[in-house]
């Protein structure tokens, strides 16, 4: 049939192999044209640039995670639950409260929800503002926590969740939150004459914690060589050990820290404060 059509168009005497190839080519073009037609008719996927709240969450994943762990208050309103459809959304496990990448997909796919979200955004913003005001101290703590983590030189993100040095979700997050509180107390207890600030000297302390959070033993493992500086650390550790209000590690997180800590006191960088 195709051959006869071909013959009628171009006359006989053409190589049959050439005829087959031309026919196949025509068929392929036809299929591609059909596909293009169908695709163009459905149009491009709608893109939503509106919900700024998603941007905020993407910007501060760790801080949000840590805050969740510490305060025990997830922020469901920042990630409104979709209304029982779209299997993609259900994929998000409930333990992961803030899976940022999924949120982007969610924003792309759920165009019709953006209007609803816009109405919610006012209340969300208000809550965010309130949370900001209420957690001013927490934010400072989190920044200090981040600094401490960077200085720890532990490749957090490279390790699996929940393992020592793993990322900040699950048990790892509990551990990081606990350590941040501990470092904050140690810093608060460390009364260092400002003459030491900016000097790269350090004392390393070995310390063990019991499940109740108390320091059961500690010792100066490596001296700075400066007795005056060593004494400041001695006083800081003594004061901290005497405290009855030390944070209690989560039992699961305790398994990650039961082998003890190596605490380095170094004034090279410092938090500018009241002097002046």
């Amino acid at each position, binding site marked *: 049939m195709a051959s006869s059509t071909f013959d009628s168009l171009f006359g006989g005497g053409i190589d049959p192999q050439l005829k087959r190839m031309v026919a196949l080519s025509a068929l392929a073009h036809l299929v591609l044209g059909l596909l293009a037609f169908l695709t163009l008719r459905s149009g491009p996927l709608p893109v939503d640039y509106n919900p700024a709240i998603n941007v905020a969450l993407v910007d501060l994943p760790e801080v949000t995670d840590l805050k969740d762990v510490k305060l025990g208050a997830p922020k469901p309103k920042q990630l409104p639950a979709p209304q029982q459809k779209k299997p993609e959304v259900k994929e998000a496990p409930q333990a992961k409260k803030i899976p940022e990448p999924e949120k982007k997909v969610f924003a792309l796919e759920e165009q019709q929800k953006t209007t609803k979200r816009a109405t919610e955004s006012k209340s969300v913003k208000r809550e965010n503002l309130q949370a900001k005001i209420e957690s001013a101290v927490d934010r400072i703590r989190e920044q200090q926590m981040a600094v401490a983590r960077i200085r720890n030189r532990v490749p957090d993100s490279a390790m699996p969740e929940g393992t020592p040095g793993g990322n900040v979700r699950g048990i790892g997050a509990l551990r990081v939150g606990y350590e941040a509180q501990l470092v904050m107390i140690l*810093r608060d207890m460390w009364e260092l004459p400002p003459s030491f600030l900016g000097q790269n000297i350090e004392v390393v302390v070995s310390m063990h914690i019991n499940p109740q959070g108390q320091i059961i033993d500690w010792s100066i493992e490596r001296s700075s060589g400066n007795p005056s500086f060593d004494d400041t650390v001695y006083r800081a550790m003594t004061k901290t050990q005497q405290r009855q209000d030390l944070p209690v590690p989560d039992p699961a997180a305790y398994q990650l820290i039961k082998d003890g*800590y190596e605490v380095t006191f170094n004034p090279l960088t410092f938090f500018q404060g009241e002097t002046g």
Partner: protein
Amino acid sequence: MTLSHERTRALGALLLVVLLPCLVAWPGKARAQRRTLVVTPFERKFKIAIQPFVGDSVEANATGARIAQVVSSDLDFTGIFQPLNPNAFLEDARKIENIDFTGWQALGAEALVKGSVTPETGGMISVEARIFDVYKGSRVVGKRYSGPASEWRKIAHRIANEIFKYFTGDDGVFDTQITYAGKPNRLVKEVYVADFDGANVVQVTRNGSINNYPNWSRDAGQICFTSFKSGRPTLFVIGRGGHGARSVRPSSTILQGAWSPMSSELAVAGQVGVGNSEILRLTPDGASFVRLTNHPSIDTSPTWSPDGSKIVFVSDRSGSPQIYVMNADGSGQRRISYQGAYNVHPVWSPKGDRLAYAAMVGGHFDIFTMRPDGTDVAQLTSSGNNEYPSWAPNGRQIVFQSGRGAGTAIYVINANGSNLRPIIRAPGGATAPTWSGHIP
């Protein structure tokens, strides 16, 4: 034979049973992993409780109270210590045994100072000072000082030095002085000396002329200064107490001088012949000199590096006053200040790690510091007109003249730009301060 073989096998099995748990446990022990925490400090002052020193008489108690007050203000002066309010102290100042350290901890004190004053014969006093570490729960320093009762203030400074040294590992500056040029009236400028905190001002020169740029000798026993007593600027040397003034080289015009930290030599800015100002190195008696610079531009304000190997000075050879450095023999002259169009009065820190200087910013001068190679410039002041910096011997503070409001006064600031405070004012103004070394 067979029995023995079986025994051997049994023994092997037994060993396996005993050792296996150990082998299993071993890797677990090896896996024990301590976590690392890094603690960085807050910037805040060190809290110390200083109780009034006590005695057995009203007079001794009064002296003791004054000593404690001076120790307290000395430590406060550094910006490093925060003496606690004595009104909050509950413990008897006489109690030197079984001290309630938890009570002092509750007050926030890290350290505690107690002392006593005992009058001796011949107008002498004996002062005992005890320094306690509140968290060690023990005395860490105990010293007895004896001297004329009139020298109670000096004893207090010594005690403050002891405390500073113990808790910072550094020498204090409480046994140092500051010399400066003060104007008792509009037409006259005289050289004065005061304690590091501006107390005990003593007038050194009384020639009714213009006397300026005083500078300490290495042992702080003498001061050189420029005087217009003869009608033109010449260099004089005088004892700290104002005795033995002499002109170093009466025939030469010398604008400014600085003692070497390693010898009795002087680096001066003076005229050679009818030329302009050059940097010269002068023998202590002024009999001979070595010319270090030879340039048609003005070279002035020489000061030494702490090891005496280099001299930093100001020259306008590049078109505007800038800071230059050279070896003490005049070789290797090179410019080191490139930030700003007007940089003057350089002085080397005692540790040699930085230079302080004055730079013109927006029509007025401010105090800056930088590394000796000209990098890492840091601005310390930002208001008023601030010139003539000079380092404290421990390098932690800088004294300088500052015009803020009415008249020019002497101010002190910590080397990191904190703890600014005025220490000396004079009726017609006080200028060009220089900090001494430790005075024996």
